[in-house]
């Protein structure tokens, strides 16, 4: 059956429904990872019009429909990358001005871009397409699926850059002080993006690197009751208490081989403090596989495996503001399902099939990664 699946996958062109045609079917998998560490053996997922109507053990499943897919391995919800540059074709920055709050990633991103096919091949079905951190107000992120068609949220977050990378001597402002003053001035404005941010309607992504920058970002967020997450913030764990108080999440990574132990330990510390942690990418600059590598590295450094998995799925979905639709296998959620030959938490497990909105997609990514920008 499995082999048939793959064969079908091989034949199927990207984004096209496969033999099953309709996005309505039943999946029987040896193991289901529903969410967190909730695993069901011999589980069933029922899908109707691209939505999950049931996910759980065989008993509760009741009558199985005509199209039954049997998978001998594992199945889980598709992974969510809380940050990436995929599909932007390198157009993630408007460097002339430090404030480009109205710039929308959604206006730039190419949904059909090969970047997304590669992400899909790694089991990633949802991504927050963010912008370069080299502006004080970089613009607005967008949340898309990797099926080459679906946009989950046109406006994801307002991305602010509070690191020294956003400050340059060839434009105003050049200082932390002025940058923060300007942001506060903007927040005072009654209309537009900033108004939505102030009202908590639009969450923020706050990029910061050194600990003093993180401190400033957290102070800004709590003073104006901003919701959202810190980006990168390598040593955030050493300030976990303050971050928790401010009610922010942290989007960490991507981490590659050789990442500083101190940085990984910081992620583990965030986990211990129960600060929501989601994993992010900088694709196409680095491989999509780093999403799971990052999680694995943090686990090695002491991050609780359940938190690691949630950082790849539910937490990431929540941070992306689409927690209700993606990130877990549960009735009512989109049928974004990944078939694995082993526990998806294991780096050594292989992606064997990907469904997005109940539609199966070929899971072979474009050869290789990187460079294509």
């Amino acid at each position, binding site marked *: 059956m499995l082999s048939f699946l793959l064969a079908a996958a091989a034949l199927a062109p990207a984004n096209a429904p496969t033999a099953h045609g309709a996005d309505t079917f039943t999946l029987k998998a040896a193991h289901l990872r529903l969410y967190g560490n909730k695993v069901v053996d011999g589980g069933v997922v029922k899908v109707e019009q691209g939505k999950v109507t049931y996910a759980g053990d065989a008993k509760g499943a009741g009558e199985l429909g005509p199209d039954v897919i049997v998978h001998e391995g594992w199945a889980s919800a598709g992974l969510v990358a809380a940050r990436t540059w995929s599909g932007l074709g390198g157009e993630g920055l408007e460097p002339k001005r430090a404030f480009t709050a109205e710039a929308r990633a959604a206006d730039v991103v190419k949904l059909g871009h090969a970047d997304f096919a590669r992400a899909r091949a790694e089991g990633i079905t949802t991504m927050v397409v963010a912008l370069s951190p080299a502006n004080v107000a970089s613009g607005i992120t967008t949340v898309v699926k990797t099926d080459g068609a679906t946009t989950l949220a046109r406006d994801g977050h307002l991305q602010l850059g509070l690191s020294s990378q956003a400050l340059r001597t060839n434009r105003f402002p050049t200082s932390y002080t002025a940058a923060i003053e300007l942001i506060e001035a903007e927040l005072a404005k009654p209309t537009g993006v900033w108004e939505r941010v102030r009202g908590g309607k639009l969450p923020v992504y706050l990029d910061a690197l050194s600990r003093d920058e993180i401190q400033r970002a957290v102070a800004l967020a709590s003073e104006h009751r901003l919701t959202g997450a810190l980006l990168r913030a390598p040593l955030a764990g050493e300030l976990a208490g303050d971050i928790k108080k401010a009610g922010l999440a942290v989007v960490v990574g991507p981490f*590659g*081989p050789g990442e500083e*132990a101190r940085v990984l330990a910081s992620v583990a510390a965030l986990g211990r403090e129960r600060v929501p942690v989601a994993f992010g990418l900088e694709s196409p600059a680095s*491989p999509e596989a780093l999403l799971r*590598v990052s999680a694995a590295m943090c*686990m090695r450094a002491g991050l609780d495996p359940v938190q690691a998995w949630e950082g790849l799925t539910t937490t990431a979905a929540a941070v992306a503001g689409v927690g209700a639709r993606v990130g877990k296998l549960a009735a009512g959620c989109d049928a974004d399902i990944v078939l694995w030959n082993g526990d998806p938490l294991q780096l050594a497990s*292989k992606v064997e099939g990907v469904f997005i909105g109940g539609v199966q997609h070929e899971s072979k990514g474009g050869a290789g990664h*990187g460079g294509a920008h």
Partner: protein
Amino acid sequence: MLAIPSLVAFGIAALPSLVLGDEPAATPKDLFIRAEQLHVRPGRVLERGMLWVHEGQIVAVGTDLKLPKDALVIEGKVACAGFIDSWSAFALEPNAQFDDRAGPATRAVDAVDSYVDERHERALLAAGITAVRLQPTVGARAGGVGAVLRLHPTKSFAQTTVIADACSATAIGVSRGDGRSFDVFERVSAVDRVIGAIADGHAYLVEGNEYRHELAEWEKKIADKQKELDDGFKKAKKDREKAQTEAKDKGSEFKDKEYKEDKKPKAPRFDEEKEIYARIAAGELPLVVEVHRALEMRALLAGTARFDRLRLVLAGASEAAQCAELLVERRIPVIVWPVPMGVQRAREYRGASLALAAELDHAGVEVLLGSGAMDPLASRDLPLLGSLAVGHGLPRETALAALTTRPARVFDVADQLGTLELGRSADVLVLDGDPFAATTSIRYVLSAGELVVGEVKK
């Protein structure tokens, strides 16, 4: 869960005891390891296997060994040989990485910093890396002579050098993300440069042999002549006196007769670089070439076909899949770097696929895994890269071989590293599960028979 807390500690100064790592108590003469699965070598697994280590050496492996008295007993689910990073920069002085003065005769051992932070070394050991092949100037034209070192938190590398000249390395058209770009002509000439160097080395070898041969002949000839002259001296003396008196009588001036003999053959000029390439041509040293494009690989393989004793190893090899059959035919191993990090702007890595290892293995090429030597600490994460390769289709068993037996064989240290067979010095990992599972932790690590990670209560 020893590995994890000790790793966590590295970031946090507030745990000094862990930061320093608890010094393992002086290891006793005898260690005895019991494991539910004992990987003697990939493919040879003993269920409920036992291993007896005496004074650092493996002296017995089996399923029914009897416990030597007052031996330290270590138990766990899985035991296997320590991992070897085939391509590491751990403990290399940073300047050495991009030193353009480096040549074939530059030695990695000279760039190894024995004072590298002990906590870094413990991090590698805790991750299961017990040996590394070091290669300076990964990016430059010539990587010089690489070395294989065993890791040990307290011994200096001078004490733990397994082999100081494991190989020689060079690179073709590699920018390593430092912005250098090579046009196709540069790259082709780079190939010629490598082939030329091997040819020179070969010629140097031949020249040397010829010289030694000629010298021997000449010495023999001269020895005979010497004897003959010694014998003929009395007569020669008489003849001379006679000639002198004759000359006096004639009033003509006397002249000694001219002496002739074969010139002594001249020794070839010493050349430290050709010395190395001579050893390469003779197959004494494997030659590791980092090369990525199929075009250059083919040219290299074609150009080196005539050196029958040459031991070629490819590294990086992004497009190796395209000439897999050639590699199989020539039995050329390939060191794959599963995640080319930090080089996203290096053109040569375009098209590098995470499935490369699997594809090559499927085609029958001997695959090794390395951490790429870009970041000194990358070695720590080699096991994860192994898992990643498995996750992209490389069979577990092959992955294990790629981290143990294969590097040991390729770099001529199989007699010491890579397996848990008799006579090997004991570099052993004892884990609580599958070596490639992210959730597995490494309970104990032995380096040269010494317990360097984990503690056992008697």
